């Protein structure tokens, strides 16, 4: 019988096969080969693309390189959305692998946040965890954790360590038996602005304490 643990593992180990190609406008010394990678759905683009960066930097001059950003079919990809969310939002109907274009210049200031270092991702990640716990436990659990516990959560995500992450995350997912559940179940709605349709796909991601990805319920609301 399927157990929660199986579900959690499947969610955690969800991967999206991705093909990174350098944008044609980028100046290169020689032709850039596409780069293929399995991206963890639960992680963040800028957190897991060190290899991509390294791969393309080999063919580029240092002076041509600014902050790396990604785009899919003309849409800049927001790094602060989990990778799974980005894929489901923009590319769920395309053939795999997911083809992402890599840019090193013309950073779209209006669409994207800068991501100068991993600590920015960490801050963002921790804040969503805190938001979620505020709803679930009035922040009691997250506040009772020590700095090293917070670090363990983050390191678990960063290093793709399921056990490390869940050893801590389980505390965020518990509730006293007599209460019979969380105060509120946090979820976040992601919306794509598509102007071609009269209805909009709204993706509701339940912030299961993890970051927005435990369940991907897709509702189609007619607006």
């Amino acid at each position, binding site marked *: 019988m399927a157990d929660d643990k199986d579900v959690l593992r499947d969610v955690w180990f969800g991967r999206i096969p991705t093909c990174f190609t350098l944008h044609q406008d980028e100046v290169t010394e020689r032709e850039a080969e596409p780069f293929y990678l399995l991206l963890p759905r639960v992680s963040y683009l800028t957190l897991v693309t060190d290899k991509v960066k390294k791969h393309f930097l080999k063919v580029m001059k240092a002076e041509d390189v600014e902050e790396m950003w990604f785009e899919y079919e003309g849409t800049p990809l927001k790094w602060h959305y989990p990778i799974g969310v980005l894929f489901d939002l923009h590319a769920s109907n395309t053939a795999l692998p997911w083809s992402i274009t890599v840019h090193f210049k013309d950073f779209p200031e209006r669409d994207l946040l800068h991501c100068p270092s991993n600590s920015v991702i960490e801050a963002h990640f921790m804040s969503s965890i805190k938001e979620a716990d505020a709803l679930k436990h009035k922040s009691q659990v997250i506040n009772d954790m020590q700095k090293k516990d917070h670090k363990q959560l983050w390191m678990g995500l960063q290093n793709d360590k399921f*056990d490390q992450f869940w050893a801590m995350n389980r505390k965020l997912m518990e509730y006293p038996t007599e209460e019979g559940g969380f105060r509120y179940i946090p979820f976040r709605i992601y919306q794509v602005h598509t102007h071609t349709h009269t209805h909009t796909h709204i993706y509701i991601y339940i912030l299961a304490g993890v970051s927005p990805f435990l369940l991907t319920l897709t509702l189609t609301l007619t607006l």
Partner: protein
Amino acid sequence: MPVSLLWAVDVYGRVYSLSTGGQQWEQCRDAQLEFKRVTAAQQCCWGIACDHNIYLNVHASDLPIRYQEETYENHRWNPVDGFSERLLPSDRWQWSDVTGLQHQPLDSFILPSKSWEWEADWYVDENFGGEPTEKGGWTYAIDFPATYTKDKKWNSCVRRRRWIRYRRYKARDTWAKIPSEQSGLPDPFNDISCGGWEISEEPRGRLSLWAVSLQGKVWFRDGIYHHNPEGSNWEEMSVPGEVVQISCGPGDLVWAVLWEGQLIVREGIGRDCPQGTSWVVVDSPSPEVGAIHVGVGVNVVWAITKDNKVWFRRGVNSHNPCGSGWIGMVGEMIMINVGLNDQVWAIGCEDRAVYFRQGVTSSELSGKAWKVISVPRDGDRSHSSASASSLQSAGCFFSGEVRAQSVVSDVDSDTEKEKGSAEGGSDAPTEPASEAPKPRIPKVTSDSFISELVSDREPGKNTSAAPAILEEESNPAEGEVQDPPAAGIALSPSHNVDLEEAQSQQAGAGAVLDSADTCSLSSVATYTLALEEPYGADEHPLWAWVNGGGCSVDCHSQLNWFTLAQSVQSMSLSITPAQTAAWRKQIFEQLSERSKREMDNFRHYEQAIEQSVWVKKGTMQWWRDWKPHKWMDVRFALEQFSGPEGNKDGILFIYYNFNEEKKYLHAFINEVTILVPVLNDSKHTFAIYTPERTKQRWPIRLAAATELEMHDWLALLSVSCCDSRGIQGPPSKQAIWSVTCKGDIFVSEPSPGLEAMPYPTPCDQMFWRQVGGHLRVVECNSVGVVWGIGYDHTAWVYTGGYGGGFFQGLASSTDNIYTQTDVKSIYIYENQRWNPVTGYTNRGLPTDRYMWSDASGLHECTKTNTKPPSPHWTWVSEWAVDYSVSGGTDREGWQYAADFPASYHGYKTLKDFVRRRRWARKCKLTTTGPWQEVPPIPLSDVTILPCTAQSSVEVVPLWAISNKGDVLCRLGVTTLTPAGSSWLHVGTDQPFKSISIGAANQVWAIARDGSAFYRGSVSPQSPAGDCWFHIPSPSKQKLKQVSVGRTSVYTVDENGNLWYRQGVTPSYPQGSSWEHISNNVRKVSVGPLDQVWIIADKVQGSHSLSCGTVCHRLGVQPMEPKGQSWDYGIGGGWDHITVRGNSMEPPRIRLPSLTDPSAPAPRSPLSARNMEVNGNAVRC
């Protein structure tokens, strides 16, 4: 939590009960009569019916109430007739009691009431102190009174034998009238309250029942206990005034309300004097308004004054039953009742609804808020037939008093209705007559009520209406004894004299009364009108009385009694586990499908994040390996990595400093065999064993800084160990279960090599993982039926889950984990020494033990410094003297001896210079685990038929012993319903303590006297068998435990000897004699393949000695069922093991030299019949 009942009576006198698991009031259909008052205990409910008799409803149980009558037949020898019934004139009666003083012929025994029946005829008891007697059951002596022996000697001049016969209480789940004794009970009862069951555990099921008569006298019912549920007689208690109402709590609180509005409190209630000694008067909460109703619990008193105000009494406990002051509470109520756990129930003054006091906890006894219980009654429209038949009694009833409350209630609550209907008032009287063929109880009752009220004014008129039932009341002249308005108007059929007396006493409150009186009168007509509205399900029930004395709830209970105010909650409640499982399955399938779609063709892609070693570090304390042993600070690290085949593994490191030098100790995770939490009040420690450490009896002992940290580490290490061994999910059906002396439960997956010959897997290599919960005993069989028994004797059945306790999140299943509680007693001893000046004092000799100590006397244990065993346990009672100590005690609980330490006895002799008494305090643990309670009978032992793997038993035989020693056979146990359906009681002549069922339905049991019994003719067709065969115990030994496998029968005696039953054959299953196998054995478990496992004491390891060690008998073969030697496994501190699930046949690898040519055939009967003790000690 077992289901229990809340009782209530509505204003029509119908009795209802509401189950803690239910959602509607169930009418007590059996009640032929209307009732006015009920008072409940967990096992029964008492009530006063409209005929003013007291009725008792003993709840049905799988355990019968049997009372053993006994008498002795005495013979004397004379030269002419030999032994004959002709005795000397100076001798005792020919038929007598055990002392010989009481003449007791067989026909002098009569049933105490119509509620009893004889079970069978008289028969002779042939068991004499655990040994079978010669035929006839005679025991011989030189003369009366003397010591009897079972053997007839040359000088045996007298003989006697014991006859026994059982009578059974048959009136269960029905209202049985308590036979009224005419003497001393001139007036009928008006109020009743039972309680006092916590005063003493002896005799079992003892209850105090207090009653108030209409004249205001108070009566105490004597002699109520389990075997005599009806009690023996009424005893009048003198009271300082006239009592209207009385309330008796579960403990020693008894309060009553006087007519004048003061309260009286009973003092001096105790173990030796359950009825107390004197009354103390307590003033009403409010100086102007008298009290009208009182409800008491263990440590609380609630009262209601005549203005319906609710009051809470501060500072009440058993040392100060009067409390210290009143606190006014919110709410207006007409009656209030305190049930179990000091939970409070009341009936609202306005709406006549039943209210539950929310948030009552032991620290906040006054609770938080009133919450109305709003559940429907069953079949609201189906009362018509009952009401028609009860027309007579209803009439009668209305000559009583309780109906009046309904009137008041309508005055109070239906004022609007009243006004509205007043316009059509003139129609009212004609309506009921025209609709007479369609009987509706409200009309009937209200009609008769009117006539009653009229007859109140004209007494003569009443006689025609009064039915025959009332005849026993010599002079049923009607009168009105008026209760103050809040509790309703009391219309009482009592003597005129009393009436006048009562009314004169009421004079003070006269003005109020009069207005209430007219009010009630005027309301009557309108009330009838109000009832013109169809009596439908949506009608709000009006309650008159509620009693929670049998209702076991506390502030954590999940009750479905309240309105759907919290719709979210009710939604979540409506999702069944099956739906949740289906939903989870669906999610899982969708996820798997997604993973397949997105990843299957791309597995050759590079991973974005490289796998690396993950290290978790922490600081701990370590009990160092070398002497002097002490705790030292260490750094602790777990390195986890993926092995070559993707399997996870890890290494544990303990870094320490030794002589300024940095050193470390390590253990491979895949070598760890068990993680044992050793929580005590000073340190959060746990032990890590490897096979090597088990051999040494010296685990790695670590202490974490906090409990939380320890649990984190344990959960992590446990997941890590399971991962490295590829173990996940629930234990298999073959699993071996064990329990430690701390109540922790461990389970091990047996490998096929475990029972292999000649080289079995050493049992120190077995990997044990913990399962949540707390048990004293666990038993299983190979089809996956697992039962456990808690320290508080609660029976639990395994649900198929895993984890629980501190294993949360990943190491635990989501379904099948429930809250589990357990209660145990902590004992300390008060020691005193006698000196010539002051007698016994707490001043001992300088060499003496502590004056407050543990049982050994070595450790000081005072009431204040003794803590619960671990932070998980909380005290749930106060320190109390424990009288149930072996050896007996005096009235104050003292045991005497010549000196410490010595054998103690329960009476003082001249030679006794020291004495001690035991104090007990209960503590409670609340945890979670894959266990569900099997209510309601508490057990002390359980056994499940060990099936072989291939056998397809549909109904699994399961036997148990109740904590009172009754033998029980569980019906309806299957793999799908492991909890079974009900118990079948198997009669015995004495209490039993251990039981085991082996293959082919061989049931063996051990009685309290230490002898063994074999149950004959047990089969699937006759699951309970037909008779017991008495099997004497090994000479001079009292057996205490038995385990039966395929053919082997093993027992353990009280001195720790392990015995094997010789000569057991299919045709002679009782066997012939006992053969000694080993000593230092605490428990034995024989498996379905006759494998023998024990818990042994005094096992010597290379570092230390251990008690409570799991041992495995090596060399057990079909032809050699006794085996050869012991192999030592995990321990010490183990208390129980069951291998009865392991039916895995070992691989058949045999060395030629050891080959036994015969195929495993049914074992031939062994010829050896020696009783010789060939001590094969467990290395002691």
